[in-house]
Structures are given as structure tokens and as C-alpha cells.
């Protein structure tokens, strides 16, 4: 891996990631000026900037071996006009076809036509980095199974990505047209879903107090110290009738009751509990000392405090999945992929192509810049 710090604020570059810093850098990114630069400098700069976006974790040597000067393009044919005409009209006259609307140079009409023609031109230069789209990690990112190419790469390297039902631990595997790749749905939902805060932070102060008391109670009964873990969750969630469902509602209920319950009562109870079992807690299991900002009260919890909580149901994420921040800015699937998010499978249909006025490689740089980068890699500098 080339470098780990990729979201610098001082030297911003667009990166293939949904990270907030990446979004900020993409938002304020402007093309470098080419004024007062030699052609070589322009090309070098274009190569630098584009390579920081496309496969920045690959060495230049690796990418050079993948680069192909042939770029794929398609022309959309009209069957009706092909049926009408055998193509001879395109070369009639002096060899370039009879033009019904000749270009009058300099006139407004002619310039408009030129502009229109430019809009319809096939942006071949945008396909410079098309070979990278064949890579398995990039395809996983494009299929919206990961929130950055590096994350997708990590998924591959950890053996979480399957190609045609076979584990493929090589991020550099070049997909062939028709290859089906898949990732475990739970992993995908966590990767592109809302970041879950740590469980303890989500609990309200009241809930934490309750939890601590309950744990201490449980530990004070030396004989049946584990009954809480095994049997019911109601004891842990004492005082919160709504909280038996799961930790989320537990938190909500805790917030509600926090204002109503008198702090002196809880403090007193806690002190009593502390006197009884404080030593036990410290000696038996290394306690976590956690401090909340609102009240400077210390919570002494055993290291296995999580096991006293009801388990967060695994299926919940299926019903309550929320997208990661800024996901909507990157929520597009290129045409060369067909993705089914129900099962987190995708098919690589064909190699990406450019068509009139449209290129399939997702790319934040304009045509001029890509043209310069392409020229750099032609090795005729």
C-alpha cells in the first residue's frame, strides 16, 4: 500500500471514497490551470491529479502494465435508418455525403453546429482508466458494496468477496464479462450503512446507572452471579418497562426517566452498592472506568458488562438499515454492472465503453485533463 494518509485538507485531492473529508475535497476541487505551463508540465500534472483518484494504491509500474492505448467505444445504430438506407448516401457527392445544412464558417449557425458536434463527440479520453474498472476491488466499490475502493480492497483481501461462487482473495483479479461477484450482505450493510456509535455511548446516564446497579447486585450474590446473563434481561433494565425490547428503546426510555428520577436516590443506592461490592469488582475483573461529560460520576463496570445487556437482534439491520452519510452523492451504478442489493450480488456485464457524449468510467476530471493524462501514458513525451 502506498500511503495511509489520503484525506489531507492542506493538499486536497479527490479520492474514491465517501469519507467526509473526501467529499469536502471533491467539493472544493478545481482543475489546475494550464496557463504558463509547458506541454510536458501540463501532462505531468494531469497524470498526477488523475492517478491520485484512480487506483492511488497501485504503483505506477503496475498501472503502466495495465494501461492500453486502445479505448473502447460504441456507436448507437438506428435500425430504421439502416433499413431505409444501405449506407451509400454517407459517401455520396465528393465522398463525404451530401450535407443538407452546410457549415457556414464564422457564422453563428456554424458555431452552434460545432458546439453541438462537440457535445455529441465520443469522449474517448475519459476511458483512459477503464482497465482499472475491471479490477475486482473497483467493481465491488462501483456496485455500492463498499464505501471506498480501499474498503473494497480490504474486503477482497480478507476473503469476503466471491467470484462465481469461489472465494477470490485477490483484489487485482480482472473480471471477465459475465462474472458474478458477491459479498456477505451483513458486511455490505455495515460498510455502506450508517456508522453505529459504540454501545456504551448510546446509553443514557440513567441507563448506565441502572446497568451498574444491576451488575453489582448480580455480583453481590456470589452463588448465582451469572443468573442475570443467562436468564432474563428485565433485571438489568430495572425501572424501565419499555426497555425490554432492545437497547435502542432502552436508551430512549432512559432519557425519559432521567429527568423524573431523583438523583439523590440513585446516588444513595449506588453508594450502598459500592460499599458492598466495590472491592469485589476491582479485584475479580478489571473494571473500566468511564466518565460521562454531563455528570462527573464514575461508572465502575466489569469488562464483560456487554454480556449483561440484551443482545441486539442480528436481523434488525435488515429492517432498519440507514445509508452512510453522503451516500447519495455517490449512489450511481455504471451501466456495465448489474447489481442486486437484495442479495448483494452483481454481474460484470461487459467492459466499460464510451458513447456519444457519455463515458461509463466514473471520473471527476474534464475531457482536457483526461486527454493530457492519456497523452502522458502514450509514452511519446
Amino acid at each position, binding site marked *: 500500500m502506498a500511503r495511509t494518509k489520503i484525506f489531507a*485538507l*492542506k493538499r486536497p485531492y479527490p479520492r474514491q471514497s465517501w469519507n*467526509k473529508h473526501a467529499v*469536502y475535497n471533491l*467539493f472544493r476541487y*478545481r482543475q489546475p490551470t494550464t496557463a504558463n505551463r509547458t506541454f510536458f508540465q501540463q501532462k505531468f500534472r494531469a497524470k498526477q491529479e488523475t492517478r491520485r483518484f484512480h487506483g492511488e494504491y497501485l504503483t505506477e509500474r503496475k498501472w503502466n502494465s495495465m494501461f492500453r492505448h*486502445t479505448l*473502447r467505444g*460504441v*456507436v*448507437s*445504430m*438506428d*435500425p430504421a435508418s*439502416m*433499413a431505409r438506407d*444501405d*449506407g451509400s448516401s454517407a459517401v455520396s457527392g465528393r465522398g463525404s455525403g451530401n450535407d443538407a445544412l452546410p457549415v457556414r464558417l464564422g457564422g453563428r449557425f456554424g458555431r452552434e453546429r460545432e458546439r453541438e458536434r462537440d457535445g455529441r463527440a*465520443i469522449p474517448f479520453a*475519459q476511458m483512459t482508466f477503464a482497465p482499472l474498472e475491471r479490477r475486482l476491488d473497483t467493481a465491488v466499490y462501483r456496485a*455500492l458494496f463498499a464505501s471506498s475502493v480501499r474498503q473494497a480492497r480490504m474486503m477482497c483481501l480478507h476473503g469476503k468477496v466471491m*467470484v462465481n461462487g*469461489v472465494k*477470490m482473495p*485477490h483484489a*487485482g*483479479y480482472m473480471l*471477465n*464479462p459475465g*462474472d458474478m461477484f458477491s459479498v456477505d*450482505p451483513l458486511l*455490505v450493510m455495515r460498510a455502506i450503512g450508517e456508522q453505529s456509535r459504540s454501545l456504551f455511548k448510546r446509553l443514557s446516564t440513567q441507563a448506565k446507572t441502572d446497568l451498574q446497579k444491576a451488575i453489582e447486585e448480580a455480583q453481590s450474590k456470589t452463588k448465582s452471579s451469572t443468573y442475570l446473563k443467562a436468564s432474563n434481561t428485565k433485571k438489568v433494565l430495572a425501572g424501565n418497562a419499555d426497555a425490554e425490547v432492545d437497547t435502542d428503546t432502552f436508551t430512549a426510555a432512559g432519557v425519559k426517566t432521567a429527568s423524573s428520577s431523583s438523583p439523590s436516590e440513585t446516588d444513595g443506592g449506588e453508594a450502598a452498592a459500592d460499599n458492598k461490592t466495590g472491592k469485589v469488582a476491582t479485584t475479580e475483573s478489571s473494571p473500566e472506568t468511564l466518565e460521562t461529560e454531563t455528570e462527573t460520576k464514575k461508572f465502575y463496570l466489569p469488562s464483560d458488562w456487554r454480556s449483561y445487556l440484551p443482545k441486539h437482534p442480528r*436481523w434488525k439491520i*435488515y429492517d*432498519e*438499515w*440507514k*445509508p452512510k*452519510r*453522503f451516500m*447519495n*452523492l455517490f*449512489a*450511481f*451504478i455504471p451501466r456495465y454492472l*448489474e*447489481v*442486486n442489493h*437484495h*442479495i448483494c*450480488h452483481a454481474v460484470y*456485464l461487459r467492459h466499460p465503453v464510451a*458513447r456519444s*457524449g*457519455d463515458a461509463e*468510467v*466514473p471520473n*471527476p*476530471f*474534464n475531457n482536457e485533463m483526461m486527454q493530457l493524462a492519456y497523452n502522458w501514458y502514450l509514452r511519446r513525451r
Partner: protein
Amino acid sequence: MPPRLRPPTHNVLPSPSTSTRTFSTTTPLPRRTRFQKTEGTRNGFIDFMSKTAPRLNVPSPKHNIPVYLSLTPRSLPTKPGTNAKKAISSRAPGVSRKQAREEIIDWEGIKERGGRYTPFPLNQMFHAHPVISTEFREEIVLRMKAERSVRRISAELNCEMERVAAVIRLMEVERRWVEQNRPLCTEMQSRIHSMMPLTPYTPFPRHESITDLPIHPSTNNQLFLSVPESMSFTRQHASEALGLLPADVRMPHSELIEVERMKQAGVSIEDMVKVESEREEREMKEIKEKRERRERREGAGKVVETERFRFRLKPASAGSVGHRYGVPAEDRKRGVVKIPTRVV
């Protein structure tokens, strides 16, 4: 050291209205400050997160109109015959400006027109192409179950053949998951689809161009050919000169040209359907024969199924085929690429 020149004293008070300076007084262009060490970068980021990020982070866009990165806040088109200023000034009591502005937005119009979305504002050449909706997928599977060929489904639904085939494969996996009682990520799918342009299923959907002819590299070079002046130079002639098949054959859905020809000749619909079904039958027969031939070829020898491999044994004589016994394989050699090139 020469004596310093004293400034002229005759013009102590400069005239405020007219400038006597000869150089340009226009405001200079903003300097590029990208690589300068600015102290406000972190502050700028915090500013962005508080001011601009709420506009950009839209986890559930209204009316499923996708929101992509834009440098300036976009103004959505209003309904025809409405004026934003008038609507805001004459809003009912209790209605905020924002609500009044949102009420007159032409959501239906935006959906119908289905604009071209450019997720990267600097690159106008990349567009977010719509994806097919889940109903569309189900429709493809329904048509497949009605024993229609992939080619025909593709032509009917204006969807590439590769895509149709892929959707059928994916839906087969999904069906298997449902049978196995494995949970589907329906919530994630719907949330993702609400964020991107979508092609809903309609009786005659127009999803994408299905007759995309790949540009052959040999057509990029100029070719000089002397041709009689009186000769009409057709696509057929061009293909012969280039040594390729004509575009009429290379194009996917080349059968549509024949259909159009029949349409233009005024052939009745019954005849067209008849011709088409004959052609389809012929093609199916050809495919079937091809498959049988391949199976016969592959199944020539004995097949031994093991847990991991399916050995197809063919009669062969040692020495004439395969590696020589004792020669090590190169699959662990240094410098040889170990990444497989294909997974069957």
C-alpha cells in the same frame, strides 16, 4: 551613493476622480491558493460541514429525485404558470417560505423528463444512468418463464441482452435464498433505489440503447481506396475493404433491421409475427445443436466426479500430451503472476 531623488512636490494632492496611472486598474484574478499553507483549512472544513453538508447529505431524497454533488444550490423547476416570488409573497399564513417554494416545484415534470444527472460537476461527460427497478426485474423473469428468448425480452423491454441475462441469473439466486429462508436486504435495496435515477416498469419502457455497435479498432485508421465514380459504395463494400463483417451483422439485434424493412414495405403484422417466430425457431434450433455438439465433444471420455473436481478423462498416449512427468509446475515460481485470470 548618489543623492536620492526627491518626490515631486507640485502635485501633492492627487485628484481623486481621475487616475493618471497607465497600468491596468482592473481587479486581479483570484490567485490559486491550493498548495499554500492556509491556516483556515480545518476551519474551512468545519464551515463546510455546518453550512454546505446539510444540503449535500440527503439520505432520503424527496420524490425519489436524486441529489448529487453540485457546487451551488440547485433550483428545481417550478410548475408551468407559477412564479416563485409570487407564490412566496402570497403564501397562506402559517406557511413558511421554504414550504411555499417546495409546493410549486414540478416533481412530476422532473420525473417525466428524467434529466441527465452529472454526479461530478466538473465532468459533464459522465452521467448517472438509471438502473432498472425491482418490478422491472420481476417482469424480465416473468417473460423468461413465458419461454421467451433473451434476445426477444431485450428487444421488447429496450434493455441490453447482457443485462437481461444477468438479471435472470441474479433473480435465480434470489429465489434460492428465499427458498432457504435467508433474509433479503429489501430495506437497503429500496433506500438505495430512492437515491438514484430509476427506470420504472411500463408496458413499453425505454431503458437504454440496445443496438450499440462496438467500434472496431481497425476502423480508426484511415483507409484509402479507389472506387469507380459511378459505384454506389455501401456498408457491405466498406466492410469488405476493412476485412470485417458489415455493421448490419455485427450490431446486436441485427434482426431489428429486417423488421424495420418489413415495416417500411408495408407487410401486415401477422406476416411479420410469422417471419419473426420462424427466425426465432431457427435460432433456437441452431443453439440447441451447438450445445449438443459441445456436450458430445466434452463428454467423450469418462467423467470422474470428486468433491472438488470433475475430471473428464480422455484417451491419450503418454509423451504426446501434457507435461513431462517430473517437471515441476510453475504455479509457485517467483515472478509468475498467481492471480487467476478466470473463474468458471
